[in-house]
């Protein structure tokens, strides 16, 4: 076999079979959905990420339009699903809300993000 091709296959094999691979935690989906308008006030914001999270380093906050934080401050990673980050909400009035998150995957890769949702009357 051509030595260059052998080297190519070896590198590809190394990359594909890399052990202990983790990655940045990206938002997979959220509830309420990103940019959505919902009827009925949600009782919590839940974000499912693409990687397992390091609970102590993650952050999830919800702000009303005025910039005031309105979540209950009880953010947590779900005990049964370590890729699910959630925070409880009080009874929300109709209006627009901003969710700000910081996700740290178990290998300490950090990602940040935010999105908005609207509670309809």
């Amino acid at each position, binding site marked *: 076999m051509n030595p260059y091709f052998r080297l190519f296959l070896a590198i590809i094999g190394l*990359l594909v079979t890399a052990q*202990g*691979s983790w990655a*940045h935690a990206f938002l997979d989906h959220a509830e309420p959905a*990103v940019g959505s308008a919902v009827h009925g006030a949600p009782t919590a914001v839940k974000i499912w990420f693409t990687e397992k999270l390091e609970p102590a380093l993650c952050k999830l906050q919800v702000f009303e339009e005025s910039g005031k934080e309105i979540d209950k401050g009880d953010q947590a990673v779900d005990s049964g699903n370590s890729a699910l980050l959630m925070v409880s909400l009080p009874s929300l009035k109709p209006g627009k809300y901003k969710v700000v998150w910081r996700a740290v995957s178990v290998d300490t890769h950090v990602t940040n*993000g935010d999105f908005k949702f609207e509670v309809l009357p």
Partner: protein
Amino acid sequence: MSLVRLRFHLLAAWSGNFRKIRAKLSLGRSLNLSTREGLRVCRVPSHRFLDFFVNRKTSSHLRLASLACQLLSFAAPLTASAHGFAGDRFFPATISTDDPFAASELSLPTFSEIRQPGQPPVKVFDVSTDLSLLLFPRTALTIGDGYSIQKVANQSAQTGFDNAALNILYEFFENDKHEAITSIGLTWDIGGSGRHSLGNDSFSTFTPTFYFGKGFGDLPDNLPFLRPFAITGTLGLSIPTRVRNESIAVDPVTAQKTVSVDHNPDTLEWGLALEYSLIYLQQHVKDIGLKAPFDHLIPLVEFAMSTPLNRGINKLTTGTINPGVIWSGQYFQVGVEAIIPINSHTGRNVGVIAQVHFYLDDLLPKIFSKPLFGP
């Protein structure tokens, strides 16, 4: 940062009835094209980087590399640095132009194929690789090279490695809120590192470059579907270390000597990439229900241009427009683009370029998630 790029620039040095064109298809790769009627490939570059692994000392070098990898793999887990992020924005590694990020990543392989006009036409197939390592926080070193196969109809193919090239890049500004980043870098196309008989430049070229990236996630809320747009770009001055090449031809009958001179101009290398990230749309603007693989697509169009600045061939811009798409996953991305010449000086045929690009800091975090030196 990906150093794979598609650069065409015209030497336009006239020697008798011949017009010489130099087309750079990727980092360090140099195709000199000579023609009477149009473009015709006449030189192919070569390579040294892979020779390190595959020459006569292959086994000992591979053992050394393997040992080094094993030693590195015992390193303690490291805190992570982000590749391709500015705030909420993830910028993919662009294929035909360079991006402004210092990161540990590997383009393996990048394929390109284009048919050059001429009598007869030449099909150029190129395979290349780039390896970037984060040396210090915000500073990365990249080495890259390629292998070209050029085929003229009814003739055997010419093959050879390209000149190798090195790049050092430093991110000197980042604004997360505005998803903005700027960097500076220096590329050294290593003259003489390729196979000279196939046409590699025997002189080096240095290209100091300014890089930038900007996401539009900070646009007002009433423009939600423009927020996934982003742009990256480069502006570099390519400076050859030899201003002209002289060659002497001797007529075998008359013994008369003819001296031809090719000028090597300084060139302005400029590129842009306009991206629309469906990842950003789904994660930060509005979940429109896209499912895999479409929720990880980034359609883009790249512009890779070159404008000679002096030595009698000023302002004859050559380049290509490359529309395509990148799919970005957790550990790697795959991209494909068309190569569309912007004018007849560049070429007349549409080509294609495709790339697999690995995020080494995600794939092998014990080794690459932290700079090799520094905190």
